[in-house]
């Protein structure tokens, strides 16, 4: 079978500094999203379980100028092949435009038996991609899988829903989104990192998948994107553990959040 894993690379969130409430993105390197590593890992585990399966990674460059290098990590984890959509128009696109581009690329790749998304991207976490691509390709979709199996041409997924765990089943082809609980992504071995450079990587523009800039034009305007201001007392309480606790209890009583 063929599994396509759309992955997103995002600016390394640990390295984004805030200055005057503005995020500083200059010189912040991109990395494969943490949650996307869970979706890649899920695909690789299905590949191992089912056998005779090809795992294809697909991404949109979105301003990552070193996208080919970043995607090597996915290939080093074990994906067989990578496709990269690079187009300035896609950098500005919102979820609708990106979903359309992904859907067109998936069609051009020849479709898949299973498309595995992360439940959301690691930076923006909108969770729209999986369901949008499923709708565009008219496929069933199961969200938030924390366990996946494929057998007899069927997909079975478990997901948490309120106080219950739901077991859901769908025919293939299908779209699934996974949560971080599903697995612990593997760390590529040195050997696999070296091999990754030789795996096929194809770069496409929007035109290559039959779209133009107008088709993916942004439909939302970002009015502002600023860090929230935190108004906290920031009082450090010192002393021995007993002293600290006594002082804390006093302070909480004064604040009216603890009974005297």
């Amino acid at each position, binding site marked *: 079978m063929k599994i396509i894993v759309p992955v997103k690379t995002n600016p390394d969130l640990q390295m984004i500094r805030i200055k005057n409430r503005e995020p500083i993105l200059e010189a912040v390197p991109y990395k494969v999203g943490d949650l996307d590593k869970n979706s890649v890992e899920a695909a690789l585990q299905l590949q191992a379980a089912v056998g005779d399966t090809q795992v294809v990674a697909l991404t949109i460059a979105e301003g990552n100028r070193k996208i080919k290098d970043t995607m090597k990590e996915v290939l080093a984890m074990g994906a067989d092949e990578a496709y990269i959509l690079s187009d300035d128009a896609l950098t500005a696109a919102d979820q609708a435009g990106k979903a359309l581009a992904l859907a067109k690329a998936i069609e051009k790749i020849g479709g898949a038996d299973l498309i595995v998304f992360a439940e959301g991207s690691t930076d923006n976490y909108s969770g729209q991609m999986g*369901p*949008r691509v499923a709708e565009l390709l008219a496929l069933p979709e199961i969200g938030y899988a924390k366990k996946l199996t494929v057998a007899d041409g069927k997909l079975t997924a478990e997901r948490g829903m309120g106080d219950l765990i739901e*077991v859901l*089943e769908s025919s293939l082809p299908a779209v699934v989104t996974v949560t971080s609980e599903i697995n612990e992504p593997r760390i590529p071995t040195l050997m696999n990192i070296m091999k990754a450079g030789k795996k096929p990587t194809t770069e496409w523009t929007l035109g290559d998948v039959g779209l133009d800039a107008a088709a993916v034009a942004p439909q*939302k305007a970002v009015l502002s994107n600023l860090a929230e201001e935190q108004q906290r007392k920031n009082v450090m309480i010192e002393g021995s553990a007993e002293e600290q606790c006594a002082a804390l209890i006093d302070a909480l009583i004064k*604040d009216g959040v603890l009974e005297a």
Partner: protein
Amino acid sequence: MADILVYSDLLTNAKELAYAGKGFAAALGMGISAAALGPNADADAAELGAYGADRVFVGKDPALEGLQTDVVAEALAQIAKEAGAEYVIIGSTRRGKELAGRLAQKLGAAAVTDAGSVVVEGSDLVASHFSYGGATVAKEKVNTPIKVFAVMPKTFEVGDVVAGAGTVVTPSLSLTPSAVKLVETKPKEGAAVNLDAADRLVCIGRGLAKKEDLPMVESLCAALGAEMGCTKSLCDWEWLSENRLVGLSGTKAKPTLYLSCGISGQVQHTVGIGTSKIIVAINKDDKAPIFAFADYGLVGDIYAVVPALTEALKKK
């Protein structure tokens, strides 16, 4: 007249949306409708009317049983058209967030999910959501003819309810059964918890060396009358159930008192605690980012401070 249509799979959340939606509708000169779907639709409809919806579209098609995303999306898309909705505001519950993408795609709409605020600006509704993993908040305006917002539960408060139900409308739905089959449901391990409602919350992080040490934290919770929450790793390791996760992918808690033990304060966690009245942090690293979010910071080992605090509270 354009309309605002609200829907949530959770009735309490749907009521919040109907109530807030009525205010938005008044400000924008629109009508306010709600959708009640599935086996409980009739009972829900009466409540939604009381909470502000002028019209309640009731969908009881058998295909809606189980509220599978594809069918609910199709039903709401049909209702949105029939209602003449310009805004479709749904709850960003787990089901709702999954629904948002599929529904928006059907309506040719752009969508904002996980919105933590929606406000009227001029003749538009604009929504804010976390960006860069929670480091910033992006405020967005949607420019498609129909706009979809998925708003986090508890974003809107509910005020006085005016009795007098809205008009019940039976939409002409044409639905096919879901492509996804619910095989079974099983209870989650661990007792049900509702951190949403907790007035005091103690959260434990990776500062806890092993699962066997949880009783130490449980004792503090008991002494303080607090619920216990945690960071993501503890759920991933299955030390605690995912119902106890606080942060971006878990509960956005609103307690009077939040106390963190051995938590570094990474943004995916702190976005879930920002609306706490008082924040206390215990961490052995005096440079831990959590201290910047805290009203009171205690530098120390949780294995010393937590038992000491428990004792001090008991003696109080």
